[in-house]
C-alpha cells in the first residue's frame, strides 16, 4: 500500500505542539506533500515552521497528532522514515574539529548506509567542497559550513529532503549552486520541502506553497494557481500633464493617482474576464488624456503572503 504512487510522501494530521514553556507552537496542523514535488512552507518568524520540521525529523516530540512518511508512522516505524529523510537544519551545527570528509562519512554511517566513497566524492564535488575535503570545519567560512550541512543531509541518499531556510545569509553563488542541486535532486525523484523568507525564491522554485502562521496552516496551493487567483496586475501610465484629481468621467474605474498626479495606476484581478485595458485606453483617448509611458506589473507572492498573514 505504501508504494502506491497516490500515497503522499508526507502526511501530517492534527499535529499539535506545546513546548514545556507552555507556548503552543503548532495548533493542529494538517498537511500533505506529494511525491516528487518542491513544496515551500512560508510563514513569519515564530510561525512554527522549524517546529514542524523538527517533529517530522524526530528531534522534537509532538503533543498530539500523527505523521506518516511514505505511509509509515514516524514514531512506530522511525527507522524506516528517518532513513528516508534528510534535513538541513536552520542552525548550523557540526562537529567543528572533524574534517569535511569525516563528518559527511559519519552522517552516512549514522543513517545506516554502507560506506560509499565514490558517492561522497560526487556529493562534495557537486557542492564545490572537494578541495576542502581534508579541512577542519573550523577553517571553513559560514557559507562553506552550510554546504557541509547540505552534504551531510544528502549523505544517505534521502528521498525526502527538508531545507530549513537554506539560503539565509548565503551569497549569490551558493544560492545558485544550491538551487541547481535542488533541481537535480528533483529530477531524480527526491521530494523537497523548504522554508524561506525570500518569497521570490519560493515563487520560482516551488510547485506548491503552504502558508503557516501562529501554528496553523492558512493555505496550501499550487504556486501558479495562487498567483492567478490572488495575484493582481496593474498598469501604470505616466501622464503628459499632471492631474489634481481623477476626472469624474473615470469614476467607475479602479484608478489611483500617484507621484503628485503624474502617474495613473489601474489595478485588476488576473483572473478577471476581459481586463478592460483596451477600454480604458480608449476612454482616456476620448477624454484627451495623453500619456508618455506605460508599465505593467504583477503582484508577487510576497504581496499575497503579506495580505494573507495580515488578514489572519
Amino acid at each position, binding site marked *: 500500500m505504501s508504494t502506491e504512487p497516490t500515497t503522499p510522501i508526507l502526511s501530517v494530521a492534527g499535529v499539535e505542539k506545546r513546548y514545556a514553556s507552555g507556548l503552543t507552537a503548532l495548533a493542529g496542523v494538517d498537511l500533505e506533500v506529494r511525491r516528487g514535488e518542491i513544496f515551500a512552507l512560508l510563514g513569519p518568524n515564530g510561525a512554527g515552521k522549524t517546529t514542524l520540521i*523538527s517533529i517530522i525529523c524526530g528531534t522534537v516530540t509532538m503533543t498530539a497528532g500523527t505523521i506518516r512518511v511514505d505511509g509509515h508512522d514516524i514514531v512506530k516505524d522511525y527507522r524506516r522514515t528517518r532513513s528516508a529523510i534528510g534535513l538541513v537544519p536552520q542552525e548550523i551545527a557540526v562537529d567543528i574539529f*572533524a574534517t569535511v570528509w569525516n563528518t559527511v562519512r559519519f552522517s552516512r554511517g*549514522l543513517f*545506516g548506509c554502507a560506506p560509499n566513497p565514490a558517492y561522497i566524492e560526487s556529493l562534495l564535488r557537486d557542492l564545490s567542497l572537494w578541495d576542502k575535503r581534508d579541512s577542519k570545519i573550523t577553517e571553513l567560512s559560514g557559507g562553506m559550513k552550510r554546504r557541509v550541512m547540505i552534504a551531510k543531509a544528502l549523505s544517505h541518499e534521502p528521498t525526502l529532503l527538508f531545507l530549513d531556510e537554506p539560503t539565509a545569509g548565503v551569497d549569490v553563488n551558493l544560492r545558485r549552486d544550491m538551487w541547481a542541486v535542488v533541481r537535480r535532486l528533483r529530477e531524480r525523484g527526491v521530494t523537497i520541502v523548504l522554508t524561506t523568507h525570500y518569497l521570490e525564491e519560493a515563487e520560482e522554485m516551488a510547485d506548491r506553497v503552504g502558508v503557516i502562521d501562529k501554528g496553523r496552516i492558512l493555505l496550501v496551493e499550487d504556486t501558479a494557481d495562487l498567483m492567478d487567483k490572488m495575484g493582481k496586475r496593474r498598469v501604470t501610465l505616466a501622464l503628459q500633464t499632471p492631474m489634481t484629481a481623477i476626472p469624474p468621467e473615470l469614476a467607475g474605474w479602479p484608478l489611483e493617482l500617484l507621484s503628485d498626479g503624474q502617474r495613473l495606476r489601474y489595478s485588476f484581478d488576473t483572473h478577471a474576464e476581459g481586463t478592460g485595458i483596451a477600454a480604458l485606453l480608449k476612454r482616456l483617448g476620448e477624454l484627451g488624456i495623453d500619456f508618455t509611458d506605460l508599465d505593467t506589473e504583477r503582484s508577487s507572492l510576497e504581496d499575497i503572503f503579506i495580505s494573507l498573514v495580515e488578514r489572519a
Partner: protein
Amino acid sequence: MPGINLHGMWAIYRTEMQRAFRTVWQSIATPVITTALYFVVFGAAIGSHMQQMGGVDYGAFIVPGLMMLTILTQSISNASIAIYFPKFTGTISEILSAPLSAFEAVIAYVGAAATKSVIIGLIILLTATFFVKIEILHPVWMVAFLLITSIAFSLFGFIIGIWAKSFEQLAIIPSLVVTPLTFLGGAFYSIEMLSQPWRTISLFNPVVYLISGFRWSFHGVGDVSVAASLAFMAGFIALCLAVLWCMFRTGYRLKS
C-alpha cells in the same frame, strides 16, 4: 530494513575513538605521569615505611586501587563529555534524527568510553610494572572486572552527561562524589586497617566493592567477598540502565 543500525553504531564508536587519537599523546601521557607520581609519593615515600599489606608489597598493593581510581574518573569524564558536548553544540540533533534506537546510541557512546578506559587501565598497569613486580593471580577475572567497571561507570557518566546543564554540573559528581569515595574506598589501604565504626561505615561505600573485587583478582585477597563485588556491579549496571531507560522514554533533557 535490518533491525539493528550497525553502520550507525560503528559511525559513532569510530568518531569517538578518533577524538581520543587526535590527542593520543595527551591521552597516554596523563595516566603515565599520574601513575608515576603516585608511585613516587605512595610507593616510595610512604611504602618504604610500611610493611607488607595483605601479604603483598605495598607498591603492588596499590596498583589495583590506582587503576580503579583512574578508570572511574576517566570513564565518567569520557562518557559524560561525549554526550554533553553534542548537546552543548547542537550536533545532538543529528543523532536524534538518525534511524538509531536510544539503546544503540548508548552502546556506541558507552562502548567507546569504556574502550578508552580499558586502554588507560592497561597503560597504568604497564607503567606500574616499571616500579614494582606485579603478579596477577586471576587474569581472566582481572580483565572481567576491568571491563565491567569501565562499562558501568561509562554508563554512569553518560547519565551525568545527559543530566548536566552546564560544565560545572558535569564536573561536580566526579570531583565531589566519586574521587572522595575512591580515596575512602581503600584505593591505597585495606579497610581492615580501619578501627570500628569506620570499618562498618566503609561497607556502605560502593567503591569498596569495586576495589576489593579487583584487588582479589590480582592478589587473591580482598576486603569483601568476590560474590559481593559482582553483585554490587550487576546492581549498579542495572540501576544505570533503568535510569537511562526512563530518561529516553521521556526524552529527558534531550528532546523538547
